[in-house]
């Protein structure tokens, strides 16, 4: 059927080109007041991975891809692609590059208006493809007895088409204009003749935002935050952070900057081994009287937060947060005293023997919180849990561990005692308390006993935890496992980690893709089982889905996110380093797989 349609469409392939464009910049077609604009000025940078045969070999060797390619949908898709390739006389990668290689812009404007402008490097190819697709649509319309619906409507010197009566599009020279509303497309065509002031280029916010995206960006995004915040759902999302103490602690500064900002700009630059995403908003949230001021501690009092290097590290997070300031502002941050908050304060009162949590406990910490997540090393002889949960720890700098260290020790041991008492009431095994030493630092360790457990290859989840406290180098280390606590003591003794520059107040998140992938792979069976009952999948479907997830993570090497103030703006930089898993040896012909 497809081939017949292509024969019908064949004579149309040499239709004349429409008038050449009058505008030079693709954004000149866009309205002056969009909510959102996505630009791809250098799309070839995005196509490179698709054009890379070696990478394609890796992707197409993955079981999820092969399963899709062998499915009826996959076969149909590639049949269509191959037929188009044969008709156009080009392979799909080349065709894609020539069709979209000139750049593209997408704009969203109220109400629900969408406009896409795509610049082809090969205008003739664009016209030929359009003619083929028009042939398909005409044949379909003829079958339904409504062939005339495909007739174009002329607007000036431009023919405006619609395949399904909903979308509308036009080809102007080497540019394809596509809109979800006819009036949107007509307005774009008329904008060519309009004064520069009526174009997006005349908008002040747009110019300012575009300048921050970086000259090397392959894709740029601009959002009019001032107008987006008029949307109740968006505004509610910004406000919700206030209600949750953990969210308020983690995202302080960012949410406030978003509230102040009138625009957001982002740029995606593609490098050989990954990509860099930069985002900026024109808000800095620098009001010292703000309850969120705890997220901007005085640099003189806030130490730099070098990331801590420990074996098997999966993630490291450094947040410039003043916990004392945070809790001192709790009445403003969380006016509603929830039962959870009251319970927390009551327990802290017990653990710290009535000391005031704000002024007598948290005031003893220096601004800055570091969190570390690391792979656990289980000794098979001692036992391995059925589900392996990574170790995690928090590290805080203390003002004077000598004075305050024993207060923390006492609180920690009270907490462990309470845990043991509560578990005992439920006839559950308790923790054995122990002392250890690492690099001259005493450790307070709690661990579960495996006595009486025969099957040590499938231990219960509690064996992922051996909560440990240490106070090395004027720091407090609170770890979910003894092993990570020991590694952190060593790291702090070394002063380990690539230190940030002095005065660097960026919050930072570092992820190790390979490690995270390995941690997930170690729990593959548990993930498959969860998928089965959470998605209603068969085991085969679940294995395929989890396999795809792991394969995707397998491409990520390292992720580094930094968020902080940039003068009068707030910015974020995300560096993602990708890696290319080795392609497996060829396993014979694969009919359904793409070439």
């Amino acid at each position, binding site marked *: 059927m497809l081939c017949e349609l292509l024969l019908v469409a064949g004579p149309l392939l040499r239709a004349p080109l429409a008038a050449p464009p009058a505008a030079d910049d693709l954004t000149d077609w866009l309205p002056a007041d969009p909510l959102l604009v996505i630009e791809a000025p250098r799309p070839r940078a995005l196509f490179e991975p698709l054009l890379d045969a070696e990478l394609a070999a890796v992707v197409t060797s993955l079981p999820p891809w092969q399963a899709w390619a062998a499915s009826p949908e996959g076969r149909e898709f590639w049949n269509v692609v191959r037929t188009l390739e044969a008709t156009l006389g080009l392979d799909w990668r080349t065709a894609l590059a020539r069709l979209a290689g000139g750049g593209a812009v997408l704009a969203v404007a109220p109400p629900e208006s969408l406009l896409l402008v795509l610049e082809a490097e090969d205008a003739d190819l664009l016209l030929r493809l359009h003619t083929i697709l028009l042939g398909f649509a005409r044949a379909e319309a003829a079958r339904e007895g409504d062939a005339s619906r495909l007739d174009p409507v002329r607007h000036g010197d431009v023919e405006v088409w619609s395949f399904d009566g909903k979308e509308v599009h036009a080809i102007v020279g080497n540019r394809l204009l596509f809109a979800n509303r006819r009036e949107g497309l007509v307005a774009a065509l008329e904008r060519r003749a309009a004064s520069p002031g009526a174009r997006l280029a005349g908008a002040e916010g747009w110019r300012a935002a575009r300048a921050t995206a970086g000259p090397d960006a392959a894709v740029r995004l601009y959002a009019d935050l001032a107008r987006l915040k008029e949307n109740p759902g968006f505004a509610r999302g910004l406000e919700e952070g206030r209600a949750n103490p953990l969210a308020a602690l983690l995202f302080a500064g960012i949410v406030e900057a978003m509230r102040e900002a009138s625009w957001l700009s982002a740029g995606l630059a593609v490098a050989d081994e990954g990509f860099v995403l930069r985002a900026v908003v024109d808000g800095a949230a620098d009001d010292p009287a703000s309850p969120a001021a705890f997220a901007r501690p005085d640099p003189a009092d806030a130490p730099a937060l070098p990331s801590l290097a420990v074996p098997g590290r999966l993630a490291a997070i450094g947040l410039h947060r003043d916990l004392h300031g945070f809790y001192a502002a709790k009445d403003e941050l969380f006016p509603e005293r929830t039962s959870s908050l009251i319970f927390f304060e009551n327990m802290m009162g017990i653990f710290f023997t009535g000391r005031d949590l704000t002024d007598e406990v948290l005031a003893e910490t220096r601004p800055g919180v570091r969190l570390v997540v690391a792979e656990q090393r289980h000794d098979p002889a001692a036992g391995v849990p*059925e*589900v392996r949960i990574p170790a995690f720890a928090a590290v805080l700098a203390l003002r004077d561990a000598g004075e305050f260290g024993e207060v923390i020790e006492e609180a920690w041991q009270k907490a462990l005692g309470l845990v043991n008492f509560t578990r005992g009431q*439920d*006839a*559950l*095994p308790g923790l054995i308390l122990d002392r250890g030493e690492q690099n001259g630092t005493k450790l307070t360790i709690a661990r579960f006993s495996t006595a*009486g457990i025969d099957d040590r290859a*499938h231990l*219960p*989840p*509690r064996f992922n935890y051996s909560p440990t406290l240490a106070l090395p180098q004027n720091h407090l280390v609170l770890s979910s496992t003894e092993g990570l606590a020991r590694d952190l003591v060593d790291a702090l003794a070394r002063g380990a980690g690539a230190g940030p520059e002095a005065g660097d107040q960026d919050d930072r998140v570092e992820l190790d893709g390979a490690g995270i992938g390995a941690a997930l792979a170690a729990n593959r*069976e*548990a993930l498959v*089982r*969860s998928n*089965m*009952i*959470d*998605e*209603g*999948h*068969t085991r085969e479907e679940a294995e395929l889905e989890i396999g795809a997830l792991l394969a995707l993570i397998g491409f990520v090497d390292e992720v580094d996110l930094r968020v902080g103030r940039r003068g009068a703006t707030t910015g974020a930089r995300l560096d993602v380093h990708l890696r290319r898993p080795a392609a497996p040896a060829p396993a014979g012909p694969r009919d359904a797989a793409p070439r």
Partner: protein
Amino acid sequence: MAPRHQLSRDPAAAWAPYAPDAARPWTLARASHLYRRAAFGARAEDLVRALAGGPEQAVAELLAPPGDLTAFDRARDADETAACRSGRSDAVRDWWLRRMILSPHPLRERMALLWHAHFALDAAQVKEAPAVRRHVALLREHALGSYRSLVEAMVRDPALLASLGAAASRRGQPAEGLARALLERWTVGAEHCAEEDVREAARAFTGTFVRGDEVIHVAREHDGGVKRVLGRTGPFTGEDVVQIALAHPATAETVVRRLWRAFVSEVEEPAPALLAPLARSFAAGLDLGRLAGTILRSSLFFSDAARGQRITSPVELAVGLVRSLEGLIATSTLARDLDRLGQRLLHPPTARGWAGGPAWIDRVTLLRRQALAAALLAEGGAYGGRLDPREVAARHGHADVNAAADFLADLLLPEGGEAVRSAARAELSRGAPGEALRRFAIAIARSPEYQLS
């Protein structure tokens, strides 16, 4: 077939096996009735096989399905065991629902569900998921076996003892929870035992402790003195009390009434004379499979008056719909929805389980049942459109929309729903066939008639 009220006056005729004849033919409606009551719901192939083989064979296959059940059980046991070890607290509930949907032995799961309501374990009182899994496995293992073995397993089940507050019973402070449940709910019934019987039986169970995942007996904490339980006197142990209670004639009647409520009626109180033959027969060996078979084969069970008047529980409703449409859905989501309908699996509201019957439906839960049916059959949403009425109909040779609608109506509501079918047909006139058939199936599954079995 004689009306049920006539059968009720003639126990011998009531419990005599149903033998189809011209006046009482073996129809789709009767076959569907059997599967909805005993197996959550019928798949198309079940109905085809049942109609071809007759009622006797259909019941026999429900009691002992052909095929390799061991392989199915082994695979599910492995998944459930591992899931429980992962620490996910609701794993047992979610995996049990999945097993109900997929099991080649649905009557066994239906009976396990019945015994869950009977013994009423509350998982909130049991901190370890593996113990809850073992409890459900015991219910399943003995579901159609000996009631004696079932009760003996229950009084030694650490999860159930913890749930009953009987994890530590000392000579100086006997825990009464187990003794009360045994006498008042599992065996003779509250009307056949006095408070003194419960106290004395509790003394017999002293020395019983739950330690980890096992029940141990501490001799020095056992009260070895003489007790008087249900009219018998002696230095009884807990095991002795179990045997005394099981041997009491009222126990057989308690169990027979349980199965009457599950398979025949939850609203009609049967006369003792009607149940007497079943109770006498059951008392001889306490054979649950034989008792279930007798009821499911009976003329009374297949009588016109017995059909389509029992309100299905939320679990039966949802699992039945999914089984009938040969699908598989997210059971963690389903479990949460069933909770909103009043049936939180493994968390019964009282020590007597769920009230059942008319208590399943009020104005709010009826709307929620309808919403659940619509969600299960919707193209997207929480269940991801994984039930596809059109695909099921096509799989059984009904590609045409109207033929597919007839197939679905026969499958889901083979009798008593002419008005529903007619109204549902209005949904076929618009939209693509797949969407139209989804709306058609939703209209049937939302109907008051579909809430009954």
